[in-house]
């Protein structure tokens, strides 16, 4: 709750709205206690007194009634009616929405079609029709305004409920023996309430305005009772001669509606979790760079990542996702980067081309050299020219790189034409050839398919074709087969392996599967808590792991053909990267940990191709025999 208020008041406009509204509400609440004239006390001798007249601060109206008193009583009434209408609309709308969304099927269908029909009517016409049937009066105006807003609530809340009703925790509740009514109240409703609050806070202002509108037309509050709309209506005839009689209620309506809407938007933004991570703030085109020093270039290579450091700065915390990673890649080589979730594999990969979202990501150190040129901090135009052209990415979810609304052929052709000025037909011819290269059967027809018409494996092939579109030198593949079935995975791995051999591609392959690394990669680097803890030729690392973490991680993974057995688990969890222990990050889980491991930095040591970050590495030589 405190976090919510803090967030709300960080938005200045919302804070202003909240303050105004609070003052108005307090005044409205205190009205009966204030020393005011009775609001309906007629004194025709004092008609149309100007503001600041004696005894009447805001003047009087056409019957000599005190405007200050009337505006306060009127505000009180309008607020009460508006709140009541919003509450009624929210309760009934939510009830309809939740029931329809949870029941699904025919109930949902029929209810929502009915709601759609109501929504098809112009809003105010519907309200007028309802008042016409019920007769004028404040109560009826309230009912009409509530009624026309019910569909809005029902629609919104149904949408959210459908999402929640399909969550696994609802199934779990059914298996715990809860009935439908109980599930609705104790599982679904609490998750829908924030949406109801948001919908209410964003519509309350309009509802007050609509009620005022009906009163203005004489269909709402009846004389002599004052509400803001009827005050405006009565003042209409004296608009020129006594403008203050209209200005006072007009200004009040403006103030109320504006402050409620500002506050409502603020509430919506504060409650919407997507805004909390800063996801909707526009990310920079390339990752922010704040380097203190640039490491001196070491020996040449196609791609060299040197001492790369990438952090996420969220609030006052620094998540050190990548903490001094060095890797190199030669033409035609496939290097595996393996590690558990959160170890920093993806962030390493994305940092290469400045693709880490900023904010919150910042590259705080190191260099990435492509043919000796540093890419970190390179101008955006240069990065863009290289992205896809010399360095291409393949992601776990190919849909993240494919546009759902364009045919795959068009997208491939587009990708080619971004970097190469070729004609439409030439681009199309190349697109077909790419599909042939990634072994998609029937490519001439398949280029006309939309992404959703393809199976997961086919889509990933198209993802690879996209990556190959401009004949890159390097492909960075971030878990490209994790979401695929094993038989399809085998096909994709084979394809990547063939491609790199036939085209001399260098591949940086990110995975958490030792089997995949063993089959595809020449060398492998193992990551733990943002650092490389071991590196070497794949066969050597897998047969004789030197780092205790690598050794135990390999032992955790069951192997086909091993039969029934107990697995060697590693107790505990990887450390949080915003609070790394001093010394070796694996020490809390390592059974060889000694005092020295916990006190100082442990360096990555060894000959150039075989390195390990451990003070007491496993004896590799005997194990290898």
């Amino acid at each position, binding site marked *: 709750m405190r976090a919510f208020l803090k967030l709300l008041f960080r938005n200045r406009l919302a804070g202003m709205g909240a303050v105004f509204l609070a003052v108005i509400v307090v005044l409205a609440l205190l009205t009966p206690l204030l020393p005011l004239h009775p609001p309906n006390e007629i004194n025709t001798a004092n008609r149309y007194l100007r503001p600041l007249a004696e005894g009447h601060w805001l003047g009087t109206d056409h019957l000599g009634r005190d405007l200050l008193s009337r505006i306060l009583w009127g505000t009180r009434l309008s607020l009460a009616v508006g709140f009541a209408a919003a509450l009624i609309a929210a309760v009934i709308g939510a009830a309809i929405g939740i029931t329809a969304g949870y029941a699904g099927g025919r109930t949902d269908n029929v209810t929502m079609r009915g709601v759609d029909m109501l929504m098809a009517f112009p809003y105010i016409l519907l309200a007028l029709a309802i008042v016409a049937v019920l007769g004028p009066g404040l109560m009826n105006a309230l009912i009409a305004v509530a009624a026309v807003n019910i569909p809005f609530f029902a629609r919104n809340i149904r949408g959210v409920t459908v999402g929640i009703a399909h969550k696994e925790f609802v*199934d779990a509740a059914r298996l715990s023996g809860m009935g439908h009514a109980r599930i609705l109240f104790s599982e679904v409703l609490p998750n829908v309430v924030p949406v109801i609050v948001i919908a209410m806070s964003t519509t309350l202002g309009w509802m007050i305005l609509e009620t005022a509108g009906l009163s203005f037309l004489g269909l709402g509050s009846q004389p002599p009772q004052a509400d803001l709309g009827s005050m405006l209506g009565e003042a209409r005839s004296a608009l020129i001669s006594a403008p203050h009689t209209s200005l006072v209620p007009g200004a009040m309506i403006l103030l109320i509606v504006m402050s409620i809407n500002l506050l409502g938007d603020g509430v919506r933004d504060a409650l919407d979790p997507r805004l909390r991570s800063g996801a909707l703030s526009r990310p920079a085109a390339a990752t922010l760079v704040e380097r203190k020093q640039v490491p001196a270039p070491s020996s040449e290579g196609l791609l060299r990542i040197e001492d790369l450091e990438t952090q996420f700065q969220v609030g006052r915390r620094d998540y050190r996702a990548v903490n001094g990673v060095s890797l190199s890649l030669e033409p035609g080589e496939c290097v595996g980067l393996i590690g558990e979730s959160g170890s920093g594999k993806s962030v390493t990969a994305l940092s290469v081309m400045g693709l880490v979202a900023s904010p919150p990501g910042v590259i705080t150190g190191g260099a990435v050299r492509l043919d000796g040129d540093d890419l970190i901090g390179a101008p955006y135009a240069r990065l863009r020219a290289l992205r896809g052209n010399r360095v291409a990415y393949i992601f776990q979810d190919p849909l993240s790189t494919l546009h759902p609304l364009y045919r795959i052929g068009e997208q491939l052709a587009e990708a080619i034409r971004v970097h190469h000025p070729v004609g439409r037909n030439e681009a199309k011819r190349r697109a077909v050839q790419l599909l042939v290269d990634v072994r998609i059967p029937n490519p001439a027809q398949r280029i006309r398919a939309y992404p959703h018409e393809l199976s997961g494996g086919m889509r990933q092939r198209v993802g690879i074709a996209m990556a190959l579109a401009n004949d890159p030198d390097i492909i960075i593949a971030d878990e490209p087969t994790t979401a695929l079935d094993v038989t399809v995975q*085998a096909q994709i791995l084979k394809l990547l392996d063939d491609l790199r051999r036939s085209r001399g591609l260098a591949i940086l392959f990110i995975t958490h599967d030792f*089997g995949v690394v*063993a089959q595809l990669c020449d060398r492998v680097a193992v990551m733990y808590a943002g650092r490389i803890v071991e590196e070497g030729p794949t066969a050597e690392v897998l047969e004789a792991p030197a780092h205790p973490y690598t050794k135990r991680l390999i032992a955790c993974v069951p192997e*086909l053909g091993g039969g029934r057995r107990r697995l060697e*688990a590693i107790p505990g969890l990887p450390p949080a990267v915003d609070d790394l222990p001093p010394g070796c990050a694996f020490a809390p889980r390592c059974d060889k940990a000694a005092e020295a491991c916990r006190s100082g930095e442990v360096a990555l040591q060894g000959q150039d191709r075989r390195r390990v970050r451990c003070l007491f590495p496993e004896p590799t030589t005997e194990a290898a025999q």
Partner: protein
Amino acid sequence: MSPAVQTHGLACRFEFGRRLFGPPRALLHALHPTDLAVAPGETLGIVGESGCGKSTLARMLVGLQPPSEGFIEIEGAALNRADPAEFGRRIQYVFQDPVSSLNPRKTIREILEAPLRYLHGMGRAARRARIDEIFGAVRLRPEFLTRYPHEFSGGQAQRIGIARALAASARILVLDEPVSALDVSVQAQVLNLLADLKAEWGLTYLFISHDLAVVEAVSDRIAVLYFGSVVEQGPAERVFAAPRHPYTRLLADSAPQVGRKLGGGAAGELPDPLDPPPGCAFAGRCPLATERCRAERPLLRPVEGDQFAACHHPL
């Protein structure tokens, strides 16, 4: 002794293109009539690729999905009405995504109390004692009970999911990809916990996964599903070591393994479920396919000992 779980011709069809009135436009057979039996104390592993009907089978077994045909017998009692509350006391479900199976707005204690209250009508003191017992069994600290789900890692959340299943006092658990969402080091922790619980409490497991090595490591028997049918069934140590169905062999050969060359797997994809082939569903990808395979659907039959395969030309 009667089997812990037995299915009799259990099948599930989904209707596609439902209209407000009238028959649907198409039928999708998620699961063809299936007979399975699991002995008390046994672990039956179920493997298959995405869309082969694993989760549909699992959801029917716990009453979350009404079968279109056939029925389920649990500990000798036929349950032919899809009522999760009735199933819940005998058979429970552990979900694939541990975090989304816990209501974000409830404390762990509230989540664990639900089955005790609604399935067993336990009083406050009895619930407290039982929760303490179960929470200890899944190796979690009691102070976690007052926290909310988002405060837990995947592995911890999955322990809580297991604790909830145990709280219902069911002796049969359907584990639907219980470790797929977890990291390998945590995966091993949870698998070992499951093995301990099974020994301590005498549980029966139906263990569903797409990871062959994991299934092999935990199961007594394994059933292989392809396109909504069981195509092979047999003792865990034989199914992948000596597969009899060509699909099982393809699966076993495709699993990435240390010390084996890239196989590449056979080309080809699953058939279109809305327009299934008349004969064997695997014929399009099978190196041994003959005319007979394309015309006639093979039935599951014994090949050798207690190994079964649905194939006209078993290996």
